[in-house]
């Protein structure tokens, strides 16, 4: 039997590599496989925005194979990066053992371009408040009727990941890599200036901790709604001086751009079951935060656990934990350990003491 396979969102190098590797292993395959521009069986690069959109759109009548460094989508059929002969051989020979109906090879072939387009985010420019990115579900919280089931969390297999490249965060990352001083602006928000070689950013906002909704827009906007202007360092510093802008560490912008856009979705490429701890305490002086983040920082500084455990132990929603984790990861505060390294400090605090601590905090924060 002849099988056809195609690829989606692989970059040129990976695609060439895949085709040549397919040729190389022909005589070791149990069936004949050929690469076609159009085929039912599609290898999808889940580390590329196009690939993710394609995967999430759940196209019909195709058989998808996830291609990434980690199987973070829990795909049934998965090929790990980088491309290697043995795993590819095993994958294709395993696929050849499936029934034709399982592989959908009796359906008319379609190309990836014929698949339904992914849902497009709404525009921020027209109606700022209502047009912020929607909040898809990453994890679902399973609340059973039993008392034991309460506070149990489970991972939803239909995950949607936080893809930085479609938000301000992606623009910031790209600018840092390119080392380009730039100005970012969005309807109604004070512009953000970044000076990568000094690892600083500038804004007219005097207290990043207390952004109003207009200022929030910039940090929660899609990249396509943000105006980006290249500046020379001299031009940038002149604008800083002219407008008496305030300087912040670059981490402040990265942190805020992550916190405001991740919406409970794990950052792309991150395995949901990773065991995590904080390298050191986040500098909340320059990182806008809520009270709950301080508790999470304390737990994650002393304990090494997965995200679900962190949520359970700190009585915090998983979405909040994910947002906090994404933000910490973005400024390189996190350390990932093998699952076997999970370590929880056995800490029991007496209820009266807990109440006293809360009273102290309430009194001080009033």
């Amino acid at each position, binding site marked *: 039997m002849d099988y056809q396979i195609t690829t989606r969102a692989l970059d040129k190098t990976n695609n060439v590599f895949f085709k040549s590797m397919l040729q190389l292993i022909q005589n070791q395959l149990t069936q004949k496989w050929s690469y076609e521009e159009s085929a039912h069986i599609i290898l999808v690069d889940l580390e590329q925005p196009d690939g993710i959109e394609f995967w999430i759109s759940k196209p019909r009548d195709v058989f998808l194979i996830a291609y990434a460094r980690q199987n973070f989508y829990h795909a049934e059929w998965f090929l790990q990066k980088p491309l290697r002969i043995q795993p590819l051989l095993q994958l294709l020979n395993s696929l050849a053992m499936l029934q034709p109906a399982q592989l959908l090879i009796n359906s008319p072939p379609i190309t990836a371009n014929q698949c339904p387009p992914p849902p497009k985010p709404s525009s921020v420019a027209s109606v700022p408040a209502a047009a912020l990115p929607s909040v898809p579900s990453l994890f679902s919280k399973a609340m059973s009727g039993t008392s034991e089931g309460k506070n149990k969390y489970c991972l939803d297999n239909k995950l949607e990941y936080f893809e930085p490249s479609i938000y301000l965060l992606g623009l910031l990352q790209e600018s840092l890599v390119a080392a380009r001083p730039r100005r970012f602006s969005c309807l109604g928000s004070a512009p953000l200036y970044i000076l990568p070689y000094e690892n600083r950013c500038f804004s007219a906002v005097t207290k990043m901790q207390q952004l109003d909704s207009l200022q929030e827009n910039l940090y929660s906007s899609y990249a396509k709604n943000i105006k980006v202007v290249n500046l020379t360092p001299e031009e940038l510093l002149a604008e800083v001086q002219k407008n008496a802008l305030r300087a912040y560490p670059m981490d402040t912008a990265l942190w805020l751009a992550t916190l405001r856009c991740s919406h409970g979705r794990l950052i792309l490429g991150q395995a949901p079951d990773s065991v995590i701890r904080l390298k050191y305490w986040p*500098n909340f002086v320059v990182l806008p935060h809520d009270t709950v983040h301080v508790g999470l920082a304390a*737990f994650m500084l002393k304990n090494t656990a997965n995200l679900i455990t962190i949520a359970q132990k700190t009585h915090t929603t998983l979405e909040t934990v994910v947002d906090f984790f994404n933000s910490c990861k973005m400024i390189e505060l996190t350390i990932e350990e093998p699952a076997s390294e999970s370590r929880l400090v056995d800490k029991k605090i007496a209820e009266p003491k807990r109440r006293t601590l809360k009273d102290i905090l309430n009194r*001080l924060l009033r």
Partner: protein
Amino acid sequence: MSEIKLVFTGSAGAGKTTAISTISEIPVINTDVRSNDFTTHLIRQSIDTSRKETITVAMDYGELTLDDGQKLRIYGTPGQQRFDYMWKILIKGALGLIILVDNAGDDPVGDLARYLDNFREFIKETSAVVGITRMDLSPEPNLEIYHEYMQSHGIRLPIYSVDARSRDSVVMLIHALVAMLEYG
């Protein structure tokens, strides 16, 4: 009900008295003496008297009334090592410890090391938080150096650059301490 207390400790001139005064609802009671009155060689060596007019020789004391009427007692230890007998007395039964380090001092990382060592047992049993003061005057060592020091010694505590004159800074330290006591 046993005494509810927090203890501020740290190097001479780090701002312990000032920090306590930002949150105390009573004027801070202290046993400060003019640093000029102290003429011993030891003291002259250890603090820069040009920037600190008084030093604490026994303790600082402030208070905060909680909603249920209980008093939170806030103690500050004398900064100089020669008064360290007071440290043990003050720390006994404390909820937590706040260590302030003067970044403009001669050896701020060494100061931190000494206080972490002196209160090692207490920190192990409860928790502590570290505030680095006067970083505006002396930006080096930066926070990364402190992080590295603590990491290399397996110490995981919150650390901030703070302004001891700012209530927000002091509240932030206590907030981190409370979080560490509950979750850390």
